[in-house]
């Protein structure tokens, strides 16, 4: 059905007043529409009057239990908790796509059932207590599949078949890349084996050995002068002998250092000769060839798979979207109950709010070919009952209405809406016809004419408006939803 959902709009309104006292500016009209009375997806949130910023949506039993357990604090009821789940889908039902779409009333009720639970503090004080609501919504008549579904499914299956061919067990691309990788690994192994020839290994060992020797000599050269200073403090005879020994050590170290450094430096040259005597060069060339081949073909395969996956995803999302645009008879029902628990004392619990929604409808689409369908004609009925039993706010309200929407062209839509309301002390109706035309993606001209709810002594009930709406967001203003 039609909703005006601008991200941000600037609205210019011209009110054509037949009567001099008419005061039907958009700002002071009752804003309730048929759209507002539709069965909400999460009735528990609606009956509590909350819009939770965080809603848990578990898809299995374990996450649901974990969610509930983590919400319960040691101080009592959870605060600002909101959860929404579909009981039927918590398990692993062996339900085919076809069966899902061809559900009769009895099967559709559990399959489309969603349960919502919400809590909110009763007041700002920490001990004010909690309001808890439980709600349920289902679609006894979810409607028939949109005629566009069949060609989309055919396209999806074609893409899935292609995907199996590209990356399945019998994919030649996958097998080729797998073999290339294995060949690359084998070439790397061959290079490693060549490099493990005795001459090379001996050189590697000598590097380790020489580095240790060099460390020893360099440390000795730093230590001996210190030891000489210490030796001078000994008795003269002992000092003389010790100094003589240290002088010899120093001379040996000084002589050894350049030799070791020279040999260490020459190891690089010896390594060149040792490697040159093996087949490393050839195996490295082979390794590089496979590296290039793997990179090239793996990249091409990844691109091919990514392209198919992207097409699969866009087709799947289009199929998902059609689930919200089913045609034929539609019926949504929802109910919710809320309780107040003052000071979180369960003995003081009282039923505070009751809500009930019934939303029948019918959507008609004409499709001369499955790919080319007319814009839909939607007829929608709504009934909403809200009973507020909270002290000081008590009262029940019945609201009901109907709306027909016809999108004559993709840019022009017309609707007629009738709304009725009965409360404890007043009742009234509103009948309004609206036409909207999309000038650009974000600019709309609309006109409405009809009779609004009457408020005695406050305003007359004529609705006669021509407006221009400028959307500043990219999101389309006109949406056709179930």
């Amino acid at each position: 059905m039609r909703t005006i959902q601008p991200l941000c709009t600037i609205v210019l309104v011209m009110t054509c007043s037949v009567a001099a006292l008419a005061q039907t500016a958009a700002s002071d009209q009752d804003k309730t529409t048929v759209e507002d009375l539709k069965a909400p997806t999460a009735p528990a949130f609606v009956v509590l009057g909350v819009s939770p910023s965080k809603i848990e949506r578990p898809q299995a039993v374990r996450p649901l239990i974990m969610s509930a357990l983590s919400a319960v604090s040691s101080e009592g009821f959870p605060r600002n908790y909101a959860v929404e789940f579909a009981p039927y889908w918590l398990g692993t039902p062996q339900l085919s796509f076809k069966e899902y779409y061809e559900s009769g009333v009895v099967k559709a009720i559990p399959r489309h059932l969603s349960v919502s639970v919400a809590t909110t503090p009763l007041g700002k004080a920490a001990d004010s207590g909690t309001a808890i609501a439980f709600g349920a919504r289902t679609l006894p008549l979810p409607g028939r599949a949109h005629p566009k579904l069949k060609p989309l499914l055919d396209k999806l299956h074609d893409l899935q078949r292609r995907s199996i061919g590209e990356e399945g067990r019998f994919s030649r691309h996958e097998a080729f890349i797998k073999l290339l990788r294995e060949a690359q690994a084998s070439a790397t192994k061959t290079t490693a084996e060549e490099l493990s020839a005795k001459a090379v290994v001996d050189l590697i060992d000598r590097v380790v050995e020489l580095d240790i020797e060099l460390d020893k000599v360099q440390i000795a050269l730093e230590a001996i002068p210190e030891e000489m200073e210490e030796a001078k403090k000994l008795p003269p005879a002992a000092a003389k002998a010790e100094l003589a020994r240290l002088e010899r050590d120093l001379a040996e170290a000084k002589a050894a250092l350049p030799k070791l450094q020279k040999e260490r430096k020459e190891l690089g040259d010896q390594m060149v000769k040792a490697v040159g005597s093996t087949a490393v060069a050839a195996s490295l060339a082979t390794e590089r060839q496979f590296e290039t081949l793997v990179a090239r073909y793996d990249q091409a395969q990844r691109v091919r798979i990514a392209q198919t996956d992207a097409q699969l995803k866009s087709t799947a999302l289009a199929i998902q979207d059609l689930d919200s645009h089913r045609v034929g008879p539609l019926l949504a029902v929802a109910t919710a109950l809320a309780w107040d628990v003052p000071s979180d004392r369960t003995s003081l619990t009282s039923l505070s709010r009751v809500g009930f929604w019934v939303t029948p409808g019918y959507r008609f689409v004409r499709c001369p070919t499955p790919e080319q369908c007319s814009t839909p004609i939607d007829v929608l009925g709504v009934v909403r009952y809200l009973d507020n039993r909270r002290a000081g706010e008590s009262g029940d309200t019945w609201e009901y209405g109907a709306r027909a929407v016809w999108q004559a062209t993709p840019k022009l839509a017309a609707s007629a809406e009738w709304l009725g309301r009965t409360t404890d002390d007043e009742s009234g109706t509103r009948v309004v016809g609206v036409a909207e035309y999309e000038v650009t993606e974000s600019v709309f001209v609309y006109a409405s004419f009809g009779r609004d709810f009457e408020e005695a002594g406050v305003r007359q009930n004529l609705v006669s408006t021509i407006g221009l709406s400028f959307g500043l967001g990219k999101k389309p203003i006109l949406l056709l939803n179930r």
Partner: protein
Amino acid sequence: MAKKQKKTSFYKVGTNGAADILASVDVGLGQTGFVTISLDQTPIVSAPAPIGLLRVGTAADVKGKLLIVEAKVTDVSIMTNKMSVTVKLTGGPADKLVPQPGEVAEQGESILFETTILFRQ
């Protein structure tokens, strides 16, 4: 790279070599998929799920061979991101179900399920 899941199993075909061994493949949770079935390297069928009770061969024919079931399943459900592929085998001394559940992280994504079943006497 697309998500892949693999599962291996076996199925006892029994001693009656003339018994027909049948296989069926179902995609659950309201999702849809395309299935290819091969016996060793011989393709048997390639069609959208469900595949109902397909004759794979006699017990004597299939013994020692590998049944390879590949199913590409895409999340087309607004109700759940979960999916499953179940291969059912009959004709042997006892029927056998080989289920393989999965879940995609984002709406509209796909999983390639591979179920490989060895036929044993």
